[in-house]
């Protein structure tokens, strides 16, 4: 390699590293600023309720339909495996634990990032592109308090509710397939489920996961929107980054949380 090429490569690597560190630092400062403005969003409840409607209520269709199908598929696959071991009466347990512990928070989180996270980023990014955020600043109104914080809180509130609904519909889907279609005894389906699913260990941990995913997705979505380049391409890039970064964060956080929550399983 020629010395010029080495210098050129080192310079590019250095620039990229500095850029990443700068962006990380800016993201940290932005996150603190959003958290500082969160109480203001709670005081202006009408703004937050509006965002819960946009993030939560408008995501219901995709969450409910997905939950139903995931539950039905899980029941079919689970029944096939459980039958080999003569444990088909445990279908309710298998489905409920899979959904409440993992699939509910994770799949609902991924869907939430795609539907609501991308919408939040695009909306804030377009507000920046059309100078609406600048106009707000020039009217002595802080966009972090008026635009960003309500969307952040709306996302955090919506996410656990959507995850819970996803799991409920999933269990209902499994009931339709397992009990109504295949013919498993309804009593053992619900009874085994009730005795095996622990409220603190399974349900609360599932809720904690969905809250953490809600914080991650909402924060990434508002950050990317607020820092989007004010062009059509910039908003498009920011929206894509939201979906990618949110999805990867959910999967990574899920692993970390699972390690801490269910340590007993791996001895």
């Amino acid at each position, binding site marked *: 390699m020629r010395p010029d090429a080495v210098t050129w490569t080192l310079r590019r690597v250095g620039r990229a590293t500095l850029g990443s560190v700068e962006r990380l630092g800016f993201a940290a400062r932005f996150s603190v600023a959003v958290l500082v403005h969160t109480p203001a969003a709670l005081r202006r409840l009408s703004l937050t309720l509006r965002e819960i409607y946009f993030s939560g209520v408008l995501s219901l269709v995709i969450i409910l339909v997905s939950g139903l199908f995931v539950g039905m598929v899980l029941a079919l696959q689970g029944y096939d495996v459980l039958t080999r071991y003569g444990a088909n009466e445990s279908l309710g347990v298998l489905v409920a634990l899979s959904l409440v512990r993992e699939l509910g928070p994770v799949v609902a989180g991924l869907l939430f990032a795609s539907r609501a996270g991308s919408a939040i980023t695009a909306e804030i990014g377009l507000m920046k592109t059309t100078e609406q955020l*600048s106009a707000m600043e020039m009217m002595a*109104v802080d966009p972090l308090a008026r635009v960003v914080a309500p969307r952040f809180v709306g996302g955090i509130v919506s996410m656990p509710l959507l995850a819970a609904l996803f799991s409920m519909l999933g269990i209902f889907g499994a009931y339709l397939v397992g009990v109504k279609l295949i013919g498993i005894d309804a009593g053992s389906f619900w009874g085994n489920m009730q005795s095996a699913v622990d409220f603190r260990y399974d349900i609360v941990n599932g809720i904690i996961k969905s809250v953490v995913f809600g914080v991650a997705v909402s924060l990434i979505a508002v950050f990317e929107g607020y820092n989007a380049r004010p062009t059509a391409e910039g908003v498009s890039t920011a929206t894509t980054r939201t979906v990618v970064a949110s999805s990867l964060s959910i999967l990574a956080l899920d692993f970390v949380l699972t390690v801490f929550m269910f340590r007993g399983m791996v001895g």
Partner: protein
Amino acid sequence: MSDTLPAGSDAGNAGPAVVLKDVSFGYERRRTILSGIDMSVPRGKVVAIMGGSGCGKTTILRLIGGQLRPQRGQVLVDGCDVASLDREGLFAMRRKIGMLFQFGALFTDMSVFENIAFPLREHTGLPDELIRDLVLMKLNAVGLRGAAGLNPSELSGGMARRVALARAIALDPMLVMYDEPFAGLDPISLGIVGQLIRRLNDALGITSVVVTHDIYESLKIVDYIYFVSEGRIISQGTPAEVRASSEAFVRQFVDGAADGPVPFHYPARPLAKDFARAA
């Protein structure tokens, strides 16, 4: 042309509304946008800042509004050094300023009525009935009282600019800044917006700073003009002085000549070098 500004309505009492003293600004150390800008905007006057695209006109507005801080020099608004203000102080100062953005920057999730009510709801504790009356008065001033129920997407470019103007004066500011208010308007809308800027300035006793490159419309309505090129003020004067000026840049601007001090060609190698191989 003269370097002496006309005195404003109450200039003797409170001094100019806006003063820029030896202001320099650049986004990076090597890229200078503005250099040594000296400017004064007397109270009650309409002052235009003119120049070609990318010459730093809008940056001057952002410096006055405190969205940017100068690297050198002082920006004084109503006698207060903008760079010395903390966030609270800056927001308090901005309550005295209205700004009309290039394409209106109306909030697209609100109706026309709610757009104008927005600053009133944010900064005053006025009851809804009073806010309603104030909003309709502001809309009436720009001739759009009947459009209160429309959404921004239903407005033409000229109407959107007028609604944005009504919003800019909602809090009865002492200073209104206009960023390219004539851009992309048809001749009728252009005339209406121009006349509104002048009429509202005089009727409400405010001060106006208009950033534009529309020389004909500006000459009709402004009291004083600064010409900016490559980050420096290269000429200034009253409309009469501008019309009579023989300065090359001003003449190019007034006559709309393609070539002159602002060259038609982007800097490039000599023509012969680029075509030498072909020959």
